[in-house]
Structure formats: C-alpha cells, structure tokens
C-alpha cells in the first residue's frame, strides 16, 4: 500500500459522504487533502467510448468508476477476490474461521468456583421499589375500575336468542307518531332483462331520456333487452341505489299524506236535470241579417213583436221577430252604442245612443192608439212652458226635416260620448251613461214628459260602466269598474255597495223581482248577487272562456243568459224563492253557439223575449240570432 501511495498522487476527496449531484454545476468535484479543487475529468465518456473501451480494454471488467473523484480505478486481484467473497456471503477476511469449537460457559456441571468473583448486588435480594410502584399502580387501576380484565370474545354464533319470547305492548305506546318508511316500489316489465318489445325505448325516447335531468326522468334506467341470461352485465348503479335508500331512510323528512281517493264522478254536483227545467231556448231558429257592422245593441219591444238593433254601420234596424224581416231602417249617421225600447206598452218609443247624442225614435210600428199616445207624450212639453235649462250642458232639441220623416222625434245633446241608455220601467225617465274617469258628469237622468235632465251625482266615484233602474222601487243601480252601488232616488243616498270580486264589470242586469242582480265582467266571470243575503256575490260562475259582454234576465221565466267573446250564449236557470231562507237555485241549462268570431269579438249583446222563452243575441259577425 505504501508504494501505491507514493507512486500516485493522493487524490482523496475531502467533501465526505455527500450526494455527488451537489457538485453537478461546478467544474470541480471536491477538495483534496491540501484544500485544492479536484477538477472533473475534462471529457466525459460517451456510449461509443464506453463500448470501445469494453471491446479493447482487457481490464475493463475490473474497472470501477469512483464518483467522488471522477476517476476510474482498476481493481487489484486482492480487491477482486474480496468482492467475490462478499458476494458469496463469506467473511471478508480469508483467515477468519467461522466454525471454531464453542466454549460453553454455562453448562450443567456445577463448578466449585463462581465464574466471576463479584459479590451479589444488594438490590438482588431487596424487593424492588420501582416494581412495587408499578404493581401498586396497576392494583390501584384495577381497584378503580380503570383496568379491566381481558374480555372474553364471543364469536357471534351464540349471540342470538329468542328476542320476542315475551311480546308485550308496553313499548308500543311510543310508536304512535311513527311513520313507517314506504317500501321500495316493485319492478315492472320495464326492468326485465328480456322485456316485451313495446317496453324498450325508441330512438326518440332514448334521446329524450338522455336530455332529461336525472330528477325528471320517469325511469331511472334505460330498459335493455338481452337475448340470454349469461349476457346480462352487472348493474352499475346497484350500490348507489342501496345507498340512496339508506339516505332516504334516515335523512328524508316524513309526513303523513292523506291520499284523496275520490271518485271524480262524486265531485260533480247533483243538479236537477235540464230536461225538468224546461222551457228554455235550445236551438237556433232564426238569423237576422242585414247589418254590415258589428251589432252592439239590441232591444225587444214590450209587446214582443219587434226587435230593434243598433250597429256600428250607423243604422238602427227594426225587425219583425217572427219573420226575421227588416221592417224599417233608420240611418242615424254614427256608430250606435245602445238602443233601448221604452218598456211602457202604451207608448212605442226607442232611445238610441250614438256619439254624444241620445235620439228618441218613434218607429210607428204599433196600433194607431199607441202611436198617438207616444206622440202625445213627446209633445206634452211643447204645449207648456219652455224647457227649463237646469243643466246647461244638456240640450234638448226637436228633429226636423228628413230626420222627422224617418221617425226621429227628439235629440238630447250631451257634452260627452254616450255609451248606454236605459229606460225606467214606467217609461218616462231615461238614464244615459257617459263614462269618464275625471268628472262627476257621468250619468244623466232625463224626464221625457218634462224634457228635463239632471245629474244625480255630485262626486265622481269611479268610471261608470252601466246603470239600471230598479223595476219596482225607486232605486238606481250604478256599476263602476269594480263595484255596484245602489242609490235610493227618493232619499238621495246610497243604500248598498256590492263588491263584484272581479277586475272590470262589463254589464249588469236586475232581476224583475228586484232582489237579485247579475253582473258580467271582462275577466270571464258572472256574479249573482242576492241583495238580501250579502254584498258579496252569492255565486260566481266561471263558465265562459272569454270576457262576458252582456247579461240579461227573462221577465217571466226563471232564466238568465250571458253572452261572451268566446261566441257562446249560456242560458241558466235561476229560480228565486220568496222564502228568504232558501237560496236561489242556479243551473246552467244550455250552451248556445252560432255566432262567428270576428276580430276576436263574439257575442256583444243578449236579451230575452218579453213573453216567450226565447233569447236574442247580437254579435260581431253583423248578425242577430234568435234561439228558441
């Protein structure tokens, strides 16, 4: 070894046993004993060099690369021998004998001398304090119950016994509020591995299923068909489903739901048969054609022989009811909003509202006697003093010339557009409506015999839709947008206000008895008020699909009708009893159709024949129809 040290310079590295990578980025690889840098070999060998070396160098197999110095070391024979020995698992030292005879120190032979002459320790014959401490700790722990004797493990075989040997109902009391979880629904044909073909999804159904949210799907899986049992794969959601069931069992709030198990037939109210409630109009029997615009208003003469109609084409036509023949036509020069026949049978007059004028027509379609009496009524004022101009805004004037020939007798000029005219039952008073939100001048009551007009209201209580006189007593009904007010004309005060529970009242009719009112509204409702009962509707009928335009009572029969924009007229039976305790009986008896929808408008007005159970309706299709 000495000569080796002399012959080669000592290049041992002093950096110690550190990872060589730490010097990766440096040109040197460490320091020698003198503290000088040991530089890395200038050129690293590449694969080719290595290979050439392997082929040419006979010493290659015993060359080892020293990472610490970066140099290659050729092992000597001794070193190779050492490596071989170590690889074989032998001792490195050649001279070491592994199999030397054993010297037995502790044998069965008792010797007379001890092996060592050391005297025994004192602690070997004194009880140990630390041990005592430990034992006492354990004893204490056992006493205190902290330490328990080892538990005997039962294998679970014998741990079951007859739990329900003594069944008592004492615990049952707690279960009163218990809601057992519903069982999992049983599988249907869909779930079969080989379902009938109709249960499989078509392509559309499958696409729909895939698009749907998992919560919305009707089936949580896609039905599949396998031709034999061996082809059925594992269901990938099995564990999921069980887990979800577990979650449902302990997390899902439970509530007792009373399932309504009703027969839908029982829900339908038991009403008297329409057959038993006859007579009522059932079929369309006559159509009155002639108008070219929508017919806004119709009215039947008190005798029941004549029908007057006012249309948007600016004409008022008079029809004979039985023959549907147009007897007379009066061009009034403006869209007619409303026509009303004087209910007094001894006169023959018609009020017509158009623009801001109310015309009084004498159609002279009656006996001479009647015509004379009506002429007398109209001319009664002329003979007396000049009309008192109580209200400057309303001007009464007589018709002249051509108009007179046509039958127009009087013109009442209003300050605003008139929408409706209504007669009092006696036939002397006439009310006109001029809807206006801002003024209190919305209703006028005209007296024909004295040619006087007055405005009964001094304050604006809302947009007036329509008005009506009480058939017997001195009451006056005013329907505003959402309510109906009833005024006493004698006492000049409001007696009642009816809440219609609808958004916008369109029409109103008063029962000939005077104790009941129906009103239709644009939100498809028809409300029946019993004035003796309440100010709220006694009954709301929602049988129209569209806005209700007109309502009417029959004068004699217990019938009422409503006309709507859906093109139908619904006739209902409405018996009213004198007994205050008995509520009116309302039964729809017939849906009459016939009118054609034009411009989204159906039937505009409806009215009954005064004596027969017939109903007239006028529509937006420029026709008037009679249903008998």
């Amino acid at each position, binding site marked *: 070894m000495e000569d080796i040290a002399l012959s080669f310079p000592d290049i041992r590295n002093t950096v110690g046993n550190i990872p060589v990578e730490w010097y990766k980025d440096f040109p040197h690889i460490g320091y020698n004993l003198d503290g000088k840098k040991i530089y890395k070999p200038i050129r690293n060998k590449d694969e080719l060099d290595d290979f050439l070396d392997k082929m040419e160098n006979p010493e290659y197999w015993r060359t080892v690369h020293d990472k610490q110095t970066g140099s290659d070391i050729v092992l000597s024979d001794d070193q190779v021998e050492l490596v071989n020995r170590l690889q074989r698992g032998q001792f490195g030292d050649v001279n070491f004998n592994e199999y030397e005879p054993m010297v037995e120190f502790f044998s069965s032979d008792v010797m007379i001398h001890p092996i060592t002459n050391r005297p025994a320790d004192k602690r070997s014959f004194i009880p140990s304090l630390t041990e005592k401490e430990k034992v006492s700790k354990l004893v204490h722990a056992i006493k205190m119950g902290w330490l*328990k004797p080892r*538990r005997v493990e039962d294998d*679970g075989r014998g*741990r*079951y016994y*007859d*739990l*329900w040997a003594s069944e008592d*109902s004492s*615990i*049952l009391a*707690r279960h009163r*509020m218990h809601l*057992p979880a519903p069982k*999992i629904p*049983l*599988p249907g*044909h869909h*779930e*079969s*591995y*080989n379902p*009938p*073909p109709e249960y499989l999804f*078509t392509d559309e159904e499958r696409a729909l299923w895939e698009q749907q949210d998992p919560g919305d799907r009707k089936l949580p899986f896609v039905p*599949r068909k396998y*031709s034999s*049992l*061996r082809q*059925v*794969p*594992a*269901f990938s959601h*099995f*564990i*999921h489903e*069980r*887990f979800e*069931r*577990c*979650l449902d*069992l*302990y*997390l899902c*709030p*439970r*509530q007792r739901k009373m399932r309504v198990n*009703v027969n*839908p037939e029982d*829900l*339908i*109210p038991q009403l008297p*048969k*329409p*057959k038993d409630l006859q007579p009522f109009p059932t079929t369309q029997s006559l159509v009155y*054609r002639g108008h070219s615009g929508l017919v806004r208003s119709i009215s039947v003469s008190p005798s029941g022989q004549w029908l007057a109609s006012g249309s948007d084409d600016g004409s008022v036509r008079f029809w004979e009811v039985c023959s549907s023949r147009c007897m007379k036509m009066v061009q009034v020069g403006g869209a007619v909003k409303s026509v009303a026949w004087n209910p007094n049978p001894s006169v023959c007059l018609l009020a017509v509202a158009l623009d801001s004028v109310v015309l009084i027509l004498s159609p002279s379609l009656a006996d001479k006697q009647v015509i004379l009496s009506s002429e007398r009524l109209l001319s009664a004022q002329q003979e007396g003093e000049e009309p008192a101009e109580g209200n400057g805004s309303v001007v009464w004037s007589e018709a002249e010339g051509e108009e007179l020939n046509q039958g127009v007798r009087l013109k009442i000029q209003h300050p605003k557009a008139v929408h409706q005219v209504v007669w009092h039952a006696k036939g002397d008073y006439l009310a006109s409506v001029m809807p206006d939100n801002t003024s209190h001048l919305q209703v006028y009551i005209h007296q024909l015999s004295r040619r006087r007009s007055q405005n009964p209201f001094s304050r604006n209580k809302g947009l007036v839709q329509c008005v009506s006189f009480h058939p017997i007593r001195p009451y006056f009904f005013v329907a505003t947008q959402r309510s109906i007010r009833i005024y006493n004309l004698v006492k000049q005060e409001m007696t009642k206000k009816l809440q219609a529970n609808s958004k916008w009242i369109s029409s109103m009719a008063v029962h000939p008895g005077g104790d009941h009112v129906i009103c239709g509204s644009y939100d498809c409702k028809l409300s029946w008020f019993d004035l003796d009962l309440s100010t709220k509707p006694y009954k709301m009928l929602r*049988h129209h699909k569209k806005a209700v335009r007109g309502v009417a009572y029959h004068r004699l029969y217990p019938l009422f009708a409503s006309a709507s924009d859906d093109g139908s007229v*619904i006739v209902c039976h409405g018996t009213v009893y004198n007994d205050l305790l008995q509520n009116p009986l309302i039964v*729809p008896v017939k*849906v009459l159709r016939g009118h054609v929808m034009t411009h989204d408008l159906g039937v505009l007005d409806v009215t009954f024949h005064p004596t027969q159970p017939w109903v007239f309706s006028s529509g937006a299709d420029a026709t008037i129809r009679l249903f008998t």
Partner: protein
Amino acid sequence: MGGLQKKKFERGSATNYITRNRARKKLQLSLPDFRRLCILKGIYPHEPKHKKKVNKGSTAPRTFYLLKDIRFLLHEPIVGKFREYKIFVRKLKKAYGKTEWSAVERLRENKPTYKLDHIIKERYPTFIDALRDIDDALCMCFLFSTFARTGKCHVQTIQLCKRLTVEWMNYVITSRSLRKVFLSIKGIYYQAEVMGQLITWVVPYQFSHDHPVDVDYRVMATFTELYTTLLGFVNFRLYNSLNLVYPPKLDSNAESEPKEESEDDYAMNSESYLEKLSALSASLARVVSSAEEEEAQLDHFPTEGIRSAQMEAREKELKQQEAQKKLFEGLKFYLNREVPRESLAFIIRCFGGQVSWDKSVCIGSTYEMTDETITHHIIDRPSVDKQYINRYYIQPQWVYDCVNAKVLLPVEDYFLGVTLPPHLSPFVEEKEGDYVPPEKLKIMALQRGEKTGNEQEEEEEEEEEEEEEEEQEEEEEDDNGDEEDDEEEVAEEKNLKKMEEQRSQGKVIFKVTPGKLKVENKARLEQEEKAEEKRLAIMMMKKKEKYLYDKIMFGKKRKVREANKLAAKRKAHDDAEKAKKKKARK
C-alpha cells in the same frame, strides 16, 4: 285587558319540533355520532304541517326532528357507549404517541363495544313488525355478502352477512315460502311470504363490484350493523318456528350428504361448513326429527252463504299455493357451469326439485351429469356437443317463468338456441284499463288450463290476424258511419247558411227538394244529452273541486294515453316482424 302578553313561538307546533343542529347540541354528540344514533334508533326528520310556524317565521330550509324523539334519545345507553369509544380513541392515540405498546395492546383488548339487542326489541316490539321491515335488511345483507373481502368494510361484517343470508335462504327453502322471482337488469328479485308478510329482496348478479366514490360506506356500514343484528334474531326465531336447529346444521341422516373427500380442500372446518350450507343442496337438521310437515288445512265452520263463498275462494287459493309449493317435485335438474348456480339452486330447492352441478363449480353437488334420471339440464350456451336423449336442455329463464306462472310451462319455447319469450315482471298486477302485454294473456290462459299447442297457436294467430283485419274494417266502417252522420249535419248546416245568405242578399229562390227521412239514433241522442248534462254540471263545480276533478281526469287520461302508446308500439313491432317473416318466406 290584563295579563301577560303572549309571545310568539312559545307554544303550539313551534315547540314540538327541534332542528337538527339544536338536537345535536342537546345530545352533545358530533354529527357522525348523531347520524349513527339516528340510524340505529330509527329516528328520522319530520316534515311539519306548517313549516313557517315551526321555523319561527323564517323560510330557511331546515330539517326538523320531533322533540319527543330527541328527548327519547337522551336516555339511550348507546350514547354512553359512543362517548366511551371516543375516550378509547383518545387514549389509544396517546399510547401510540408515547409508544407504550403494552398500553396499546391493553386498550385494544378492552375496546368498548355495544349491543343492539335492546334497540331491535324497542324498534320492533313484535316479531311481525320486524318481518315487515326486513326487506331493506335482506337487500343490504345480500349486497354486502357479495363484496370482496378487501377494502370497503370489515371482513367480519362480510362473513356475517354471508352467513345470515345463507341461513335465510335455507329457511326459505325449508319452509317453501318463495312466491315470485324476477330477473331484472339490476339483479334478481325474490318475493317470499313469511308468516303472512310478503318480503321482497333483490340480489345483485355475481360480479365484482365497481365501488363508486361518492358513496359513504360508513353510513352503509352502520345500517348493516343494525340489519345483521335484526336478521340474526329473525333467523333464530324463524328456525325455532320450524323446529330447526340454530345455528343451522345439515341433516346428518339425509342421503344427499356431500362426500367426505371435499373437506380436505378447505383449510378451516367452519368455513367448509358454511360453504356446504351455502351450496343449498342439503336439508337441515331438525330438533324434532320425526316432525312431518303439517298440511295447512282450513277448519270448516258452519257458515252462511256469503262467507262460505269467501272461504271457498280462500281454500282455492290455498290449494293453488300448495300446488305451487310442489311445482318441481319429482324433477331432477342439472346446472351447467355458466348459469347462476346459487339463484337456480335456491329456486329449484324452494319448489321441491332436486338439483346438482359439476363438482368443480361448487361443493355440495349430489349427482353427476351422467346421471340418467336427470330430467332437465339447464344450460345457457348456444349449443352442446353431447346431448342425452332423455332430458330437456333448457335455458334458465324457464325456471323463473314457471315459478311466476305457477305451472310448468311448455319447454319448447326455452330450448337451446331458441329465441326466448319475453320475461315479465310478476309484480305487476294489471287493473282494468291498464295495458296487458299479450304474453301475459297467454300465460293467464295457460293457468286457466286452456292448452294450446304451438301449431294451433300459430293458426290461431293467423286467424286472429284475419279477425283483427276484419275488425279494423268494421271499425273503419263504424267510423265512416259516424262521419257520414256528421257530414250530413255539416251539409245541412251549409245548406241553411247558403239559404240564409241568399235570403239576406235578396235573391230568394224557392225550391222544393225531396225531403230525406232523418233517422234519429235514439241511443246516440241519449248519450249526447247525458254528456251535455255532465258538461253543464261540471261548469257549476266549485273552484277547488274543479281543480281536483281536472287533476284526476288528467291523470286518468294520461294513463289511457300511456296504455295506448304501448299497444301502438307493440302493434308496430308485430307488424314489422310479420313483414319480415313474409319476406323470409318469399
């Protein structure tokens, strides 16, 4: 007015409920412990009738428990055990930290455990209650018994589940209480009638599970803990009721004892015993060995006519059931190795058949394939090389369909390589107006005893086709008739309209046309009248009732629509098939 002002939410329903968090605080439990307690004790949230009142005016989504339930939990001894366990974990951690291995060992030995017996007794005061709730327990145990013994849960749990399910199946076999089976795409459904209770459970197909990541196995394990206890007690009671030995022992004097040699293949005796039990091929030992099965017989009571009719019906049902119980009696089955052995062995044994399989498939095979007395060989492959002449080679669906039909179905449809008839769910009970698949009708006819040969059937089918066609034509004619009527009406109306128009235009053409005799269909008129009456009455319904009525009618219509859709689909399919057949013939 004197008196104190009443405060809100201090009485009434607000005081009957408690939110989950408050309940947890009251019990002083962590959320996992609370969850475990709820699962074990069967406490679930309640949905209050007026949620806002209970929620003290707030509309925040909260779950509510009944206060009584939570109070009841306060005295549960298991809560103490939970705390003990918490302490144990803490001590163990400490011992680990100090590397006191002896302490760790000592602690481990005294790990606190709890029993659920009292909870079972409390939740199910009577045995019938327990049976009623056993569905979920069975499903869970059957699922756990198919888990691999690695990973997701303790091996002991899996073994216990396996043992309990095997015991259950053995009970069902011995009591012959299986009623229905169904091969679904999810697994195999079984329905048994035990002590008057219908119990349904589903067993997954024998594949290794693809364990999903979003499943909390702790929750499942807690449920399984409860369910194994429940199922154990139920099994014990059921075995006792049949005078069987529990834990089950194989009948030692039965002939079909598995051979001794196979025992060497198993390392542990207990394991091999369980395997033998789970082979389901041997009968069980009884406490009173000579006990013959008592035939259930209805006592005859002198009764009046009406009740006796009921009794007759019941008797008939019972007879049918008895017949079903002996469905496979006298038949000898052999299972090929690719069919689901456990399921088939279970079913065949349930109905009194004998079954065996290849020795290498499972322990407990009783006879070889070469046995000449085998009547049915169940096989699920397209073809076999060697066929024995004196046995039927059938596909496994036959067994399941027979059980559901309660009669032995003709084997021809189930032969090797034959396209199987659809497998129907036995759980669907068709009401009036529901869609009934034609296969079901066929089976029902078979049950009634109307035997139809295959050829005959075909002929019938053809006849049916013809009839159908005829019917269709007739229907069309009917439709045409209706249409004609309608057309007449329409035409009349048109005429009227025309005339009206002409009249209004002033061109009145008087014309006398020969009148037609109008035949009034009285029945139809009456029907129309009735329909109109109904329509009018519906108009008078109150809003609430109308809503309900509309809803009910909507549901009904939807049902009809669905049934029609299925029927149409079926018809389209059949037509397509027929067209194909015809093409093939040509």
